[in-house]
């Protein structure tokens, strides 16, 4: 993604206008491709407007397509694009943000196994040219989410609300206990109460720069995975229902959603044909991506930490 801070207007939508999108493609991206890959330029639409017409079908639906930039020209491409961006006042001071999300599936490992830890970080960073991450005199900044996950073979685990300070001390060891306790009363701290049970809750905290320490810990997130049974990115049965949905002409929809919820919860108990839906406790921190920080973070999880922060429930009791 390229971000354009010069287009920032306080209180206005950050959405890129069509005019600026056209300027970006017509005056910056396509001319750069033309210089570096002249033989392939016929594959690139002659203008943003022409491309918009091409990707729209007869029903007005858009079908977005991509074009490749091979890695051997990437440095040249970036440098020339940078120069072109800086030539337009609205694109000046723009910067690139690279994001890899949801990579935990292939980076899980035993925290006490040195080799497994090294292999996991190598896998996480395989798309990154490591030696070029922090060129001299650059303002580049890189962050990584390091997480631990606690799991039980037969229990639903939940975080204890009264352990939040202990969890924060573990996540941000350089911060003073009293400062963390004060931070927990600020708006940057959020308690995510589990199923209206106030003694059980996860937490989220945007860490104040004063407390970030050498590891530059920006964010702490502590939650449980039981939401995977009902979590939906789309609008479905597991959404917030409003009072107006109880009117006679809408109530059938609510009843259908409640039946769907009840059915899922019933299956999660494990009393029927399916195995029980368990829940793990996850603790994540976002910190600076430097070997000296990442190598040692969350490598030592003591039995005392587990005993004091987590409780478990039988799936039938929980669901």
């Amino acid at each position, binding site marked *: 993604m390229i*971000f354009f*801070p010069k287009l*920032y207007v*306080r209180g206005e939508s950050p*959405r*890129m206008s069509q005019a600026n*999108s056209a300027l*970006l*493609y017509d005056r910056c*991206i396509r001319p750069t491709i033309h210089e570096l890959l002249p033989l392939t330029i016929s594959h*690139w639409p002659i203008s943003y407007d022409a491309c*918009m017409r091409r990707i729209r079908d007869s029903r007005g639906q*858009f079908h977005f397509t*991509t*074009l*490749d930039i091979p*890695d051997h020209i990437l*440095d040249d491409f970036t440098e020339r694009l*940078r120069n072109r961006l800086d030539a337009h006042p609205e694109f000046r*001071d723009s910067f*690139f*943000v*690279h*994001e890899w999300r*949801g*990579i*935990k599936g292939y*980076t*899980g*490992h035993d925290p006490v196994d040195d080799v497994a830890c090294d292999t996991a*970080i190598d896998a996480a*960073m395989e*798309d*990154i040219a490591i030696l070029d*991450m922090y060129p001299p005199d*650059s*303002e*580049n*900044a*890189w962050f*990584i*989410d*390091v*997480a631990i*996950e*606690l*799991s039980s073979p*037969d229990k639903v685990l939940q975080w204890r609300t009264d352990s939040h300070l202990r969890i924060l001390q573990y996540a941000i060891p350089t911060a003073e206990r009293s400062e963390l306790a004060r931070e927990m009363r600020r708006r940057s701290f959020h308690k995510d109460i589990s199923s209206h049970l106030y003694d*059980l809750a996860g937490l989220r905290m*945007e860490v104040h720069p004063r407390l970030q320490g050498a590891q530059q810990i*920006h*964010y702490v997130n502590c939650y449980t995975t039981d939401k995977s049974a009902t979590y939906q990115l789309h609008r479905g049965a597991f959404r917030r229902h409003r009072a107006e949905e109880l009117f006679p002409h809408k109530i059938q929809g609510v009843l259908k959603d409640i039946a769907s919820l009840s059915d899922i919860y019933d299956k999660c108990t494990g009393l029927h044909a399916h195995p029980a839906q368990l829940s793990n406790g996850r603790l994540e921190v*976002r910190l600076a991506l430097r070997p000296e920080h*990442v190598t040692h973070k969350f*490598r030592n*999880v003591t039995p005392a930490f587990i*005993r004091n922060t*987590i*409780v*478990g429930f039988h799936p039938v009791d929980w669901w």
Partner: protein
Amino acid sequence: MPPYPYEQLPELSMSLRTFNRIANELLFEQEAVTQFINFVLAGRWVNDAGQPYRVNIDPLLDCYSGDDLNDVAVSRDFDSIIGITTNNMPLNGTLAIYPVPNFRDSLVRSNHLTWKIQILVGFESSQTDEHIGPDSIAFTYFPRMRHSMFLCIKYPTSAWASSTYVKRP
């Protein structure tokens, strides 16, 4: 329905397991729907001796804690990487660019990082610093790492077992 919900009642804390057991008994064994609703939605319950209570659930009663949790396993992982660069793209592999990005991707959620930018304020156009998140800055969804590979699983056995075989394009 009893008077609701103003009269003071003695409080009673119970575990999640006990709460579930009583709710099940009220609904499925006694079929006492009104009492069930009073119990689960308003925390009002009358015991066998006729004593009414205001019920609280204390989930720390009867749960597994302390030494009960000696089977808890710990794993570690890396979940996201975020890089902010100005003059280079230190990436391995081919990139794929959208000449026209999907408008849906032009909305971004906070990634809990902020940038200091200078903005012009007032009639004299003086500059001031402001810390803002990525969800406030215009951006375009630009390159992504190329993933051209798809994996398909074919099920020849089920195709032969079925009397109809639908060939899809």
